[in-house]
């Protein structure tokens, strides 16, 4: 099914996108309210919360260009070695910008 982007079409497309996104924002807490939070569920959630980040970052590294890879590596080692995350991020971003402009 196609919706014309002329007239009210755009508005209805935006409303559909908004509805789908709200569904994802509310769905997690809605489903969890029916699941008894026992020890096992807590283990699952605790393991999952770090894994979400890993599953965002690792493919970003793999598919990224040299600039993206460098930014993440500099941030990684900078945070681990100097323990100053904000500085590590800043240097990482500058590294990406530098690599992409040479």
């Amino acid at each position: 099914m196609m919706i014309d982007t002329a007239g009210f079409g755009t508005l209805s497309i935006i409303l559909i996108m908004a509805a789908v996104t709200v569904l994802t924002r509310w769905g997690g807490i809605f489903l969890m309210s029916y699941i008894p939070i026992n020890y096992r569920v807590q283990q699952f959630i605790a393991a999952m919360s770090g894994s979400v980040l890993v599953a965002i970052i690792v493919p970003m590294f793999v598919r990224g260009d040299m600039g993206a890879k460098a930014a993440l590596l500099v941030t990684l080692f900078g945070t681990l070695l100097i323990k100053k995350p904000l500085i590590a991020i800043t240097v990482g971003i500058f590294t990406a910008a530098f690599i992409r402009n040479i």
Partner: protein
Amino acid sequence: MDTNELKFEFLEVKAGFISLIPISLFVLVFGAAFGLAATQEGLNQSSTVLMSTLVFAGASQFAALELWGAQVPIVPLAITVFAINARHLLIGATLYPHIQHLKPAARYGAMLVASDANWAISMRAFTNNDTSKGLGLLLGGGLALWTFWIIGTWIGFYFGDAIKNPSTYGVDMVMGCFLLTMVLDGKKQSKTFVIWTGAAVASIVAYLYLPENTHIIVGALTGGVIGVLIGEKKNDD
């Protein structure tokens, strides 16, 4: 804990808003890039700002532009938006134990502004048992990200040309690098690395072989399952 009803404290929400302003400035730049990209696809200003206000999920909004034309295929659009934003389901599930004692309106209201950055930073506060700070970061930080995303989108119509290609300045890496520092923060056990390795491998496999945009949810659920499998058994469970 179970008997107390939680609520948002104004000062904590304000502090959360302020804490997220630095990263929100980058969100502003991205918003402007989105505003510019939307004009190039022929969207008008009010529609674009409305989209950023109601949808507030950058990656899915950019993906929608890919499908934009005189007509938009609605089912592929809905599926794409759902797949990219499905990580919000996980965000909600991980937040639930910490926000379940909020009144339902407050709980569902706060989730409207739940996004990667304020989720990651509030989870850190919740893990340290600093519940009121975590709630402030979730809501206040979310409001900051949302506000700057909307303003950025609007700015894109006027100054978009200045940031036509934000990746030249490395701006596209800000969120990834920020989330990376969130992963590195906090206490870790040897089990944590097993879980993450599983999540990493599963996300790569999904990225290479499964439908587009499924890698986050596949990696995260794999990590969760591994966490249960290698976790200690508890008798009262």
